[in-house]
C-alpha cells in the first residue's frame, strides 16, 4: 500500500508538469502583452517595452516556461504577479480559504441532500416520492448556476433582506453561494446514488441475503449501501473540479474573493504568474484528492486493495 502511494505521488509530477505546460501554452497564445495591459494605450512604447523586459516577457516562450518551472523547483517560488508585484502565493493564501470553505460547505450539503434523497428514492422506487425526487433533481440539474444565484440574491438579499448580498466575512455570507453551488451537484449525486443503489440491489448477493431472510433494513444498510457508495465516493472526489467550476460562477455573482475570481481576472489581464500559480495549486490539490479517494476506495473494497498490492493497474 505504501509503495503504491509513493508511486502515485511520484506520478503526480509529470501530470503537474503537463498541466503547467498546457496552461502556459494556452496563455502564451493569448494576444497582447502585460506591459500594454498595465500601462494602457496612452503610455510610451519604450515604457511598455521596459516593463515587459522587467517581467522577462521579452524572452522566447520556452525560455520563459523553463525559467518559471525552475523557480518553482529550485526556489519553491510560484512567481510574482505582473499586476500587483506581490508574490502569487500571497494571493492564494488570502483567497483560497474562501474557496475551500465554499467548496466544503457545498459538497457537504450536496452530499447530505444527494445521498440521503438518492437512497430514499431507490428504496421507494416508482413511488410518488421517488418521482418527485428524480424530477426535482433533473430540474435543478437544468438550471444555469448564475441564474439560480441571481434569483436567490433577488429573493433573500433584496426582497426578504435576511441574508447579506456580497462578501465573505461571516458564515452567513456563505449561505447563498453554498446553495447556488450545491443544488446542481446535489441533483447529480441524487441520480447517481439512486442508480447505484438500484444496481446493487439487483445484484445476486443481495437477493441471496434477502432470500436468507435478512431484514430489508439490514440489507439496505449493510450490503447495498456499502457497495453503492463506492461510485458515489469516486464521483465526490472527481466532482471537486466541477464544484470549483460552480464556485467560480458563485464567487462572481456574490462578489466573493476566492480562487475563481482571482483566476478569471488574471486570465483577462494576462497575469500569467497568477494564472499559472493558482492553477498549479488547484491541480495539485485535485490530484491529492483523487489519490485519497482511490486509497479510500481500496480501504472500503478489499478486492481493489488486493489488486494494488499485486501491482495491478490503478484505475479501470
Amino acid at each position: 500500500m505504501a509503495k503504491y502511494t509513493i508511486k502515485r505521488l511520484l506520478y503526480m509530477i509529470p501530470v503537474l508538469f503537463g498541466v503547467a505546460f498546457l496552461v502556459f501554452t494556452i496563455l502564451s497564445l493569448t494576444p497582447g502583452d502585460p506591459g500594454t495591459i498595465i500601462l494602457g494605450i496612452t503610455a510610451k512604447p519604450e515604457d511598455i517595452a521596459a516593463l515587459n523586459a522587467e517581467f522577462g516577457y521579452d524572452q522566447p516562450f520556452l525560455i520563459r516556461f523553463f525559467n518559471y518551472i525552475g523557480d518553482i523547483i529550485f526556489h519553491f517560488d510560484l512567481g510574482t504577479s505582473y499586476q500587483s508585484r506581490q508574490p502569487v502565493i500571497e494571493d492564494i493564501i488570502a483567497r483560497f480559504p474562501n474557496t475551500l470553505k465554499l467548496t466544503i460547505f457545498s459538497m457537504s450539503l450536496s452530499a447530505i441532500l444527494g445521498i440521503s434523497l438518492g437512497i430514499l428514492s431507490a428504496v421507494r422506487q416508482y413511488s410518488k416520492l421517488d418521482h418527485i425526487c428524480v424530477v426535482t433533481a433533473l430540474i435543478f440539474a437544468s438550471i444555469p448556476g448564475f441564474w439560480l444565484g441571481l434569483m436567490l440574491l433577488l429573493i433573500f438579499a433584496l426582497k426578504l433582506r435576511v441574508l447579506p448580498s456580497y462578501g465573505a466575512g461571516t458564515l452567513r455570507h456563505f449561505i447563498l453561494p453554498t446553495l447556488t453551488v450545491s443544488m446542481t451537484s446535489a441533483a447529480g449525486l441524487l441520480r447517481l446514488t439512486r442508480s447505484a443503489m438500484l444496481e446493487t440491489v439487483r445484484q445476486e448477493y443481495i437477493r441471496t441475503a434477502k432470500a436468507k431472510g435478512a431484514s430489508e433494513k439490514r440489507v439496505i444498510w449493510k450490503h447495498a449501501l456499502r457497495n453503492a457508495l463506492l461510485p458515489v465516493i469516486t464521483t465526490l472526489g472527481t466532482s471537486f473540479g466541477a464544484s470549483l467550476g460552480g464556485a467560480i460562477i458563485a464567487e462572481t455573482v456574490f462578489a466573493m474573493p476566492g480562487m475563481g475570481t482571482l483566476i478569471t481576472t488574471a486570465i483577462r489581464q494576462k497575469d500569467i504568474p497568477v494564472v499559472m500559480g493558482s492553477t498549479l495549486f488547484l491541480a495539485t490539490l485535485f490530484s491529492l484528492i483523487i489519490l485519497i479517494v482511490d486509497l479510500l476506495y481500496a480501504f472500503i473494497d478489499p478486492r481493489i486493495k488486493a489488486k494494488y498490492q499485486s501491482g495491478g493497474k490503478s484505475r479501470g
Partner: protein
Amino acid sequence: MVKKKTRKHAQLAEIWRRYRKNKTAVVGLVILMFILFIVIFADLIVPYSKCIEQVGAERLQPPSLQHFFGTDEYGRDLFARVIHGARYSLFIGVATSLMALVIGAILGASAGYFGGIVDNVICRIMDVFMCVPPILLSLAVVAALGSNLRNLIIAITISCIPGNVRLIRSVVLTVAEQDYVEAAKSYGTNNARIIFRYVLPNAVGPIIVNTTMAISDMILSAAGLSFIGMGIQPPSPEWGALLSSAQTFIFSSPYLLIFPGIFIVLTSLSFNLVGDGLTDALDPKLKD
C-alpha cells in the same frame, strides 16, 4: 438480412415500449419535440429581421400583445430573439456534444482496445486535462482564440473530452474482453474494423445516454461562459448572451431574465428527461 432487420425492429419497439412506460420521459420527449419544432420553423414563426430590428422608442417594454416577451434595451423584440436563439443554443449543445463524442470515442476506444503504451499515453494526457477545472480551461481557450461561435464550441468541446474518453475507455474495456471480440481478433480482422464493427456498437447504450445528457450540460456551460463575458458575436441571439445582457436589468425588467431563462431550463431539462428515460429503456438488466 431480413431477419436481422426485424430483429432490430423488435429491439427498437421493445426500447420504445419501455421508454413509454416512463411518464416523465415522455413529457421530456414532448418538450424536446416542441423545441425542435421551434428550431426548424423559426423563420415561419417570426422573421429573423425582427431579432435585429431596433426600435429606439420601444426599448425595455414589458410583455404585451405586440411583443409577447417584451423588448430588450435596444428595443428589439425578445420573443423573436428567444425563438431564433433556440437555433444557436441547440446548435452549440449538439455540436459540442457530438464533437466531444467523436474525439472521445476515437481516443477512448483506442486506449481501451489497444491498452499498453497507447492507453498509457492517452490516459496521462487526459489526466493533465482533468486536473484543470473545465470552466477555467474553456475560459483560457476563449481568451487565447477570441470569442466567437466557433471558438466557443472549441473551448467547450475541449473541456468535456476527458470525461468522454474515460467513459468510452471503460465501456470498451468491458466489451473488449467478451468472447466475440476475442474471436474476431483471432480471425485477424483489422483493429479499426473490430473497434467500429463490434466494440463500439455494444457500448452504444451508455454512450447515447451520456451524449443526450451532455447536450444539456453543454447548453448550460455555454450560458455560463456568456455570463462571464465570453460569448458569441452580437447581435446573434444566443440564450446565454440574452441572459448575460439582461443581468443588468434584473430589477427594472426581470422578464428579460425570466423568458430566456425558462427556455434554457426547458431545453436542458428535456434532454435530461429523455436521457434519463433512455437509461432505463436501453438497460437490458431492467427488462423485468
